[in-house]
């Protein structure tokens, strides 16, 4: 009844998920890697942000399965010709179908049942200026002035109850499992988690989970009948736009950093290992690239891509595909222009490594250069790659907003935080102020970027022992489990 649409970025998102799974298996098998990753999750901020990121990842993956549903045979065409919808939808669209369909005519405040703008309507022959009722937001209320408050309250309460129940259930399951692992009593385990004992910050994780669960619960219970974050100028639900923007941000952050990797890794290791003229040439390349102010270079590349796409308008079947190719090319451009920094880092590290005994020994045994670079140098610089990748992730998401403002970002038809901010700029000067689009973009973006930053810091501290010294610490220490048990 439908056909899948394989967009470029979808495929890469799926490839990325597959890679993460493979990497996960590798981590479990390698004691060194798993020790480092365990260190990441011992830090409360990294642990909490991992939950937020996991939630965003679920949204991204759900938004990365696109399909076009089949239309009923139109009159006049042969019965056996199969036609599909012009628009491609994703699984997220399917899950949020209510939000997509409940379109108003113009702005409305968050959770409101009336439109923002007054309209002139005739009531019993008299012309009255009044705010019209929304078509979907609060449409089930017969007497909104009296019912609105209690309806909102009851829905919020249901959501809260659901969220708290879910988190309480999780906590009980977690305590049970921990108690079995630690061979301790249930109450004892719960008390030790509550007192922040042990290495893994379970208490912080539970709090995060509870916060997320209650928030999601409340939003879901309100979502069906209200516009939780209001509607924009064309009446589209802002919450839906914000959720769709998560994928754009994620794709840009991950794809663009991954696009830098091949060039940076291959050239950086080659330059450091071979030195001599190869080093000179590679250095020249990345100096040329990095001497152009980044945003100008990106703007120039994206402009050229745009001209090329404008010249070939019939390359794509649907608007989504076209916007997607633009996003994919934007990521490639970001990758191709941004590899200089990592390349420089890897070159320096390789230069240090190639003088070390194990590389010299491999050399003496007659191992070829390529093999040395792949087997001996690369695994020893991989942690730098990981650190730089996660650190770049958040700056790229922030960068997207600026690029969209400059006019070289993602396609305007694609939901993105940059696009939302761009529109919000005008809305903030309206009277009355339309602040909800802006606030939604702000809230989602700050949460996402902050989570990534905290996670990246955790990864850096775990994989780079030198960075750990700069971590700010409160003058309190966490008690280890064994000691705590002896006391109890």
């Amino acid at each position: 009844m439908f056909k899948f649409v394989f967009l470029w970025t979808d495929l890469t998102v799926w490839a990325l998920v597959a890679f993460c799974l493979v990497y996960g298996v590798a981590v479990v098998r390698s004691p060194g890697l798993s020790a480092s990753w365990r260190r990441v999750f011992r830090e409360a901020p990294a642990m909490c942000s991992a939950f937020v990121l996991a939630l965003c990842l679920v949204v991204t993956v759900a938004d990365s399965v696109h399909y076009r549903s089949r239309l009923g045979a139109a009159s006049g065409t042969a019965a056996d010709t199969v036609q599909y919808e012009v628009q491609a939808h994703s699984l997220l669209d399917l899950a949020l179908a209510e939000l997509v369909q409940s379109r108003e005519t113009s702005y409305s405040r968050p959770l409101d049942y009336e439109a923002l703008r007054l309209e002139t309507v005739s009531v019993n022959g008299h012309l009255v200026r009044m705010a019209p009722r929304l078509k979907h937001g609060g449409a089930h209320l017969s007497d909104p002035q009296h019912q609105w408050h209690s309806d909102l309250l009851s829905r919020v309460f249901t959501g809260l109850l659901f969220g708290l129940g879910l988190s309480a259930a999780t906590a009980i399951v977690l305590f049970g499992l921990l108690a079995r692992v630690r061979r301790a009593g249930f109450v004892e385990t719960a008390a030790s988690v509550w007192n922040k004992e042990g290495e893994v910050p379970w208490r912080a994780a539970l709090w995060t989970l509870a916060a997320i669960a209650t928030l999601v619960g409340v939003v879901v219970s309100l979502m069906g009948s209200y516009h939780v974050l209001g509607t924009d100028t064309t009446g589209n639900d802002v919450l839906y736009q914000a959720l769709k923007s998560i994928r754009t941000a994620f794709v840009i952050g991950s794809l663009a950093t991954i696009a830098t990797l091949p060039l940076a890794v291959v050239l950086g290791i080659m330059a450091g290992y071979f030195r001599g003229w190869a080093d000179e040439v590679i250095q020249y390349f990345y100096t040329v690239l990095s001497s152009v102010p980044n945003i100008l270079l990106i703007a120039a590349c994206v402009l050229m891509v745009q001209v090329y796409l404008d010249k070939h308008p019939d390359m794509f079947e649907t608007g989504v595909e076209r916007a997607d190719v633009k996003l994919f090319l934007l990521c490639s451009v970001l990758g191709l222009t941004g590899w200089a920094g990592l390349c420089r880092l890897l070159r320096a590290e390789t230069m240090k490594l190639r003088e070390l005994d194990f590389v010299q020994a491999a050399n003496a045994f007659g191992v070829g250069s390529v093999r040395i670079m792949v087997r001996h140098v690369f695994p020893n610089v991989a942690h730098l790659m990981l650190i730089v990748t996660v650190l770049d992730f958040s700056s790229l998401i922030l960068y997207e907003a600026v690029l969209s403002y400059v006019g070289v970002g993602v396609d305007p038809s694609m939901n993105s935080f940059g696009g939302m901010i761009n529109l919000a700029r005008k809305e903030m000067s309206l009277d009355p102020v339309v602040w909800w689009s802006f606030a939604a973009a702000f809230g989602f973006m700050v949460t996402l970027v902050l989570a990534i930053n905290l996670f990246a810091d955790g990864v850096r501290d775990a994989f780079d022992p030198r960075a750990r010294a700069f971590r700010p610490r409160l003058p309190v220490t966490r008690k280890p489990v064994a000691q705590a048990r002896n006391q109890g």
Partner: protein
Amino acid sequence: MVSYLVRRVLYGALILLGVNLLTFFLFFTVNTPDDMARLNIGGKHVTQDLIDRWKVERGYDKPLYVNEAKQGTQRLTETIFWERSVSLFELHFGRADAESAGDIGPEVARRMGVSVQLALPLFVLQVFASTAFALLLVMFRHTRLDFWGVVACVLMLSISSLFYIIVGQFLFSRLLRIAPISGYEPGLSVVKFLVLPVMLALLSRLGTEARLYRAMFLEEIGKDYVRTARAKGLSETVVLFRHVLRNALLPIVTSAGSYLPYVFLGSLVFESFFGLPGLGAYVIDAITKQDFAVVRTMVFVGSLLYIATFVLIDVAYTWVDPRVRLG
């Protein structure tokens, strides 16, 4: 020192040549002058005549790299590539693609003045404020102040600069009516238009910079000379301000220096939000109008400034740290 500088400048010229080649490839080979003409003239009725005239007006009516019709060296010099490159290196930027716009050269010079007015005070204040904040955190390291200071830094660097601008404009210009929303006036009265953008730009970068500088200071503090200084019985303030600060200046100069090109290029976002007619706003205009000549020129000017900056930073090293000898 002199021979080193000469070498650096020559290498810089080589880099500039590479940049020129790259931009030429991007702007003339990926899309031919015909495409650009079609785009610029716009509309449905683009005839070959119009395109040819557009190309002649801008000197784009020659072959790209090799002119087969000519003899000898003219085969290479009578081409768009040669003419564009030579005029760029002579700092003759030609005219903009758009019909109404004039020559790029004087426009760049005029706008650079505006950009410097915004970016120079910002640059100085930025270095000062970030260093001061980082020093404060380092002085109170391992305390609550340091912890929450770093938390504030991480929070601040997680917020897009666009949010600072929009909220700042809304708060200070619309609600409190302290500063004008946007605009520009030549002369001294420009100050009232500059205060808000400078402050907001300062704030938007403070988190990143202060955290970076803090790490630099902490790295210095772990070194032996600091322990020696403390062992001599010097007070913590003297150790920080006389010893650590001076030694941390080297990485600070490098990190702050990389922003120096933007002192002249201006900030794309801040200039266009606050209606300042600087180079950043010029670039945004050019991008929205798809004026490739301007974008190309700005790429060249940008890398020229960048290369000049790095020579300057090298010189600054010798001044900051007498141990560094160029040669």
